């Protein structure tokens, strides 16, 4: 059995990250789960949250993802995320501005569709702010 898990983070625009890790903690829809070598095959949806990558006993990467999918198979973890930002790069001031924007949009929304989209944005930025704290 392999000692490490192959972790790949891909967004539609590019392959963001590919490395071997001892453990990866993924914020699954039904609760966080850690992926270690030998994990059983799994497909899960992801909520807004932080992925933590552990290499050599220390957390080396903390990445914020805004929803997506995770697939575990044969000691390989693939995360499909539309948006992923390293936690270090989250900027509180910008996020607060974006959150206020989104809140205003949610109030001004004319139809259900626009309201749902704005609400999703509010949720996303709130989670981002929490992550940045």
């Amino acid at each position, binding site marked *: 059995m392999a000692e490490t898990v192959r972790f*790949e983070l*891909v*967004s*539609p*625009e*590019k*392959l963001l990250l590919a490395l071997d890790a001892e453990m990866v903690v993924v914020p*699954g*829809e*039904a609760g966080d*789960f850690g992926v270690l070598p030998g994990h*059983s*095959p*799994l*497909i*899960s*949806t992801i909520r807004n949250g932080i992925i933590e990558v552990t290499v050599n006993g220390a957390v080396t990467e903390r990445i914020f993802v805004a929803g997506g*999918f995770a*697939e575990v*198979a*044969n000691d*390989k973890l*693939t995360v*499909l995320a*539309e948006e992923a930002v390293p936690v270090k790069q989250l900027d509180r001031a910008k996020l607060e501005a974006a959150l206020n924007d989104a809140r205003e949009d949610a109030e001004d929304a004319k139809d259900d*569709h626009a309201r749902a989209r704005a609400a999703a944005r509010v949720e996303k930025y709130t989670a981002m702010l929490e992550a940045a704290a």
Partner: protein
Amino acid sequence: MPSLKSLRVRINSVKSTQKITKAMKMVAASKLRRAQEAAEAARPYAERMASIMASLSAAQIGSDTAPRLMIGTGSDQVHLLIVATAERGLCGAFNSSIVKLARRKIEELTAQGKTVKILCVGKKGRDQLRRDHASKIADTVDLSKSKKIGFADAQEIADRVLAMFEAGEFDVAHVFYNNFKSVISQIPTAQQLIPAMIAGTNAAAGAPDLQGGIYEFEPDEETILNQLLPRNLSMQVYRALLENAASEQGARMSAMDNATRNAGEMIKKLTTVYNRSRQAQITKELIEIISGAEAV
């Protein structure tokens, strides 16, 4: 016989045209490289998504509860054609080849008595289709503002398509775009989006071998599939847009290359004519001088 001056003017104007086409070719070449890189970068995501889709759909196909995005509405009366073209011209047969393919499909469908709706992406396609299918155009998406195609653009289009689908405005959706094969060859392609085409060969190959294990699903297959299918739709649209962007630059590059070469040939021909008539004029003047001297 044109005068020497008009020939000179003509040569100069062709020369400046050649400069422009040459510059356009070079711009297209560098844009093409970027577009190709973008298309390549999107591939891992598409592949992984196809593999997840393949794993999921194996369990879902045939069940009555499968989402409508996957199995369709059960009817195929109303077709939506998403025709993706460029925002600009001067790229050879790029736009017209997509439109030609779309037109053929429209004719085929109307001959079968189906209703056709068109969603135009890019204004060149809309301009061409408006001529004889104006009443069928449901909507137009303008991408001229975004310089580089991002996933957000594709998502917006996909959102619109989904909203129409949920409102029951169509049953089957196809997207038309140019598949980038090489700089000189772009293949106009039609791809079915709804119901999702999963039973393709690449999907079957994309599912990883689990060495006897089976997937666990969290929260459950249906929830995942319901989230995955709209994203898959955005991804397909995104891929089509990226292929299209690369093809457009490729087509423009070869069109401008041809134009530059034509201009070069034209300059050569005009220069020959110019030199001949200049010589003829000198000879004529000499004869006049000599015969004048002899007459004295």
